[in-house]
């Protein structure tokens, strides 16, 4: 059985009229691994996830999913497309775009329904995912009426009901309060424990550390700056500075106003701490 779930081989991507948004990315994600893609805004994280979900295709280079090259012509065949979608789930950053059904129940049923599952199995999956996420009470409500935390849970549920092997999560904790963020981190850990492969795009440096994941760092020039364990990459200030993930600014610490290099998400360390 193929051990490499995702392999990118010198992948570049450019949008017409905008130019390159990914430059020569080579990356491997093993089956059952958690990989965090970190980078500043506009570094190409979402584009990379779009390629991994075969919503768009590389301008050059190759993307292999469990050893099979993903090309646009493969997706012209509905059966092949369905087989890929059954194995990969993608949570969009913008949940307002991601949630489009009239009720939460319909949202959760959408993916298994379109993947051709039987009604009984769909219902079973929908309710078990609703229980897992604690959203049973929301099932008859319209997604428009939910809070951001609830929307994120519903969106996650909409992905999980397809029971994919690989999960692509774009900023899953963005815009959430501390408690909801902790819930998502725990959920991601338990999914990984259950054997799922996860690729998470984030600019929150604390997330890869909490997940103890591997990290792929994208630079401002849309190239891959480094790949390695979170503990090594996130502690490398030179690297983070190059990736524009930390910067010097003025702030208060222990009653004293001073300036020094600072990352915004929990990675703020002083020499004397």
């Amino acid at each position: 059985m193929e051990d490499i779930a995702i392999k990118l081989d010198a992948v570049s991507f450019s949008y017409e009229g905008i130019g390159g948004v990914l430059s020569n990315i080579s990356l491997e994600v093993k089956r059952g691994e958690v990989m965090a893609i970190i980078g500043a805004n506009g570094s190409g994280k979402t584009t990379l996830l779009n390629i991994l979900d075969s919503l768009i295709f590389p301008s050059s280079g190759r993307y292999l999913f469990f050893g099979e090259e993903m090309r646009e012509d493969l997706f012209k065949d509905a059966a092949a497309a369905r087989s890929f979608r059954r194995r990969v789930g993608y949570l969009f950053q913008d949940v307002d775009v991601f949630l489009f059904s009239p009720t939460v129940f319909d949202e959760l049923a959408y993916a298994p329904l379109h993947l051709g599952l039987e009604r009984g199995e769909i219902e079973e999956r929908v309710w078990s995912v609703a229980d897992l996420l604690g959203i049973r009470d929301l099932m008859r409500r319209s997604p428009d009426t939910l809070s951001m935390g609830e929307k994120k849970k519903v969106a996650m549920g909409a992905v999980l009901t397809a029971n994919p092997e690989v999960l692509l999560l774009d900023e899953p904790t963005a815009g959430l309060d501390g408690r909801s963020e902790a819930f998502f981190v725990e959920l991601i850990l338990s999914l990984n424990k259950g054997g799922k492969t996860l690729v998470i795009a984030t600019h929150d440096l604390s997330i890869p550390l909490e997940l103890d994941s591997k990290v792929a760092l994208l630079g401002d020039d849309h190239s891959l700056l480094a790949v390695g364990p979170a503990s090594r990459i996130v502690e490398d200030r030179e690297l983070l500075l190059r990736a524009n993930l930390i910067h010097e600014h003025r702030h208060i610490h222990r009653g004293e106003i001073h300036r020094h290099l600072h990352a915004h998400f929990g990675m703020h360390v002083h020499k004397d701490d």
Partner: protein
Amino acid sequence: MAGLLDKGILGFSKVLARGLRVGRQKEGGLFLRIGPEAKVFFLLSSVVGVSLIHDVVKQASLLLYISILVATSFKRPVAFYKRVLLPTLLFGGAFTLPAVLNVFVPGSRLVGLFQFKASHTFLGYEIPTDIYVTQEGVLVLARMLLRIFNSLSISLLVAETTSFLELVKGLRTYRLPNAFLMVMLLGYRYIIALSDTVVKMYLARKSRYLGGSLGEERRWVFGRIAYLFERAERRYEELFSAMTARGFCGEVVFYKEGGGVFRGVLVGALLSLPVFVLVITEAGWRI
């Protein structure tokens, strides 16, 4: 005056949200309990029936029947009829009103209006010296108003008690081509994306702009139309990607399919029975 535009834009989005996403039904009301496939049958057969009935008394009987359906399905039937009355008067009354005059529909005199010294010819019409309202003209007006009123009531009755997706589901039961349903479904998603973009852009602009005349507001709105469509299209493409990412491969499927063609036709035919009876008696057949 700027408030008018404000109300217009927000109202437009509200109407879309109400009309396309959810109905405003009476809890447990008649039309809430009927499946979409039956409602689609009722809608099509009744609208065709209304156009076939010429007799004013029969149209009035139909109005009575529709009123019963409305009363059993809506919390506030008066509010429902207010929404039907305005377009009826606007599209029916305004265009058909001249038909009451003997200039357009000659007939027996009901009320005299005025007299000219001599007859004239205007745009091919012979204008007589004596202008009056004819009985036949009033009947033409009444028939037209009742037809429009009944057709709109039936359409609104179904539209207000059925979400757009339910309607598509109902049409699917009658084996409508998948391509046609997909166009309807994606059109629906586009309209939602468009309305959402309109409101967000307008509110964002409003938060950064103090005052301004209606003319300025209007210039701003029209100046942004191209940009608005561009943004809505982008949002729609993202939405389509979200559908694709979750397994949409071009086929329209629903979690709960309707009750089938037979049940739909049966329930729909029962609902349309009074319409059928009126059409048959109009044609002169004996039951």
